[in-house]
């Protein structure tokens, strides 16, 4: 039987990553007029997809003591969003490479994603509540 909160834990990870992405996009937008600024982006979905596809393959060392070094593949709960700085492009003469249209589109997309994941968490909780109540209202 799977863990009762495993879905919610996963959603929590995704929400954290989306929140971080919101901060990174805010930072890009705040620096839209800063000469030489290079924009950053968050890589998360690809890492999560790779992790889910490789689920059950590979070995992972158990950690039974807090001074143990984790070995082997990472679990779903150990993945972290990565912040990548886009250093290779320059959009303007002052070296700034913030594409404001793209940033605004990403911002909207990110908010929608966040709201839909929150919706899923709420759904998950309502299912659990239904189970706890044995299906009664």
């Amino acid at each position, binding site marked *: 039987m799977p863990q009762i909160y495993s879905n919610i834990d996963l959603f929590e990870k995704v929400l954290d990553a989306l929140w*971080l992405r919101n*901060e990174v996009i*805010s930072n890009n*937008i705040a620096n*839209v007029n*800063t000469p030489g600024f290079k924009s950053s982006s968050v890589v998360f979905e690809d890492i999560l997809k790779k992790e889910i596809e490789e689920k059950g393959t590979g070995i992972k060392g158990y950690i039974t003591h807090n001074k143990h070094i984790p070995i082997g593949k990472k679990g779903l709960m150990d993945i972290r969003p990565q*912040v990548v700085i886009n250093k290779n492009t320059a959009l303007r003469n002052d070296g700034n490479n913030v594409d404001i249209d793209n940033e*605004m589109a990403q911002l*909207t997309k990110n908010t929608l994603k966040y709201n839909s994941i929150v919706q899923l968490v709420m759904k998950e*909780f309502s299912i659990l509540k239904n189970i706890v109540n044995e299906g009664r209202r």
Partner: protein
Amino acid sequence: MKMFHSIDISASGLTAERLRMDIISNNIANVNSTRTENGEPYRRQIPVFQERGRSFGDILSDKQWRMQKRGVRVVGIRQDTSPFKLVFDPHHPDADENGYVRLPNVNIVTEMVDMISASRGYEANVTAINSAKNMAMKALEIGRI
């Protein structure tokens, strides 16, 4: 990763763009000022923006992209050192012996373009704040089933 970092970051952008707008207004207001305290015509002012980066200690202690002290910072207001405009106007009280007046090095077209850029930047930051607010409000709904 703190809850209100996004809003703080965008607020720093708002502050910077508003300061830029103030300076542009000052430049436009002084487009014909031939006298200042130091005897020269008015020099165009330019705000200098810098990303609020990580300190060396932050990088040493943690490789993760920490959201401490992010955003944009105005490091100073510099003067445009380009030459003044020379206009032939012998009746002007500030004209030199050849009849030329030195006018400020403010180009009104450049200022207008900068003004549009500053105001669009301001709007973008407001949108970012609104979206962070929406996300936070939505997250509050999790507890309410």
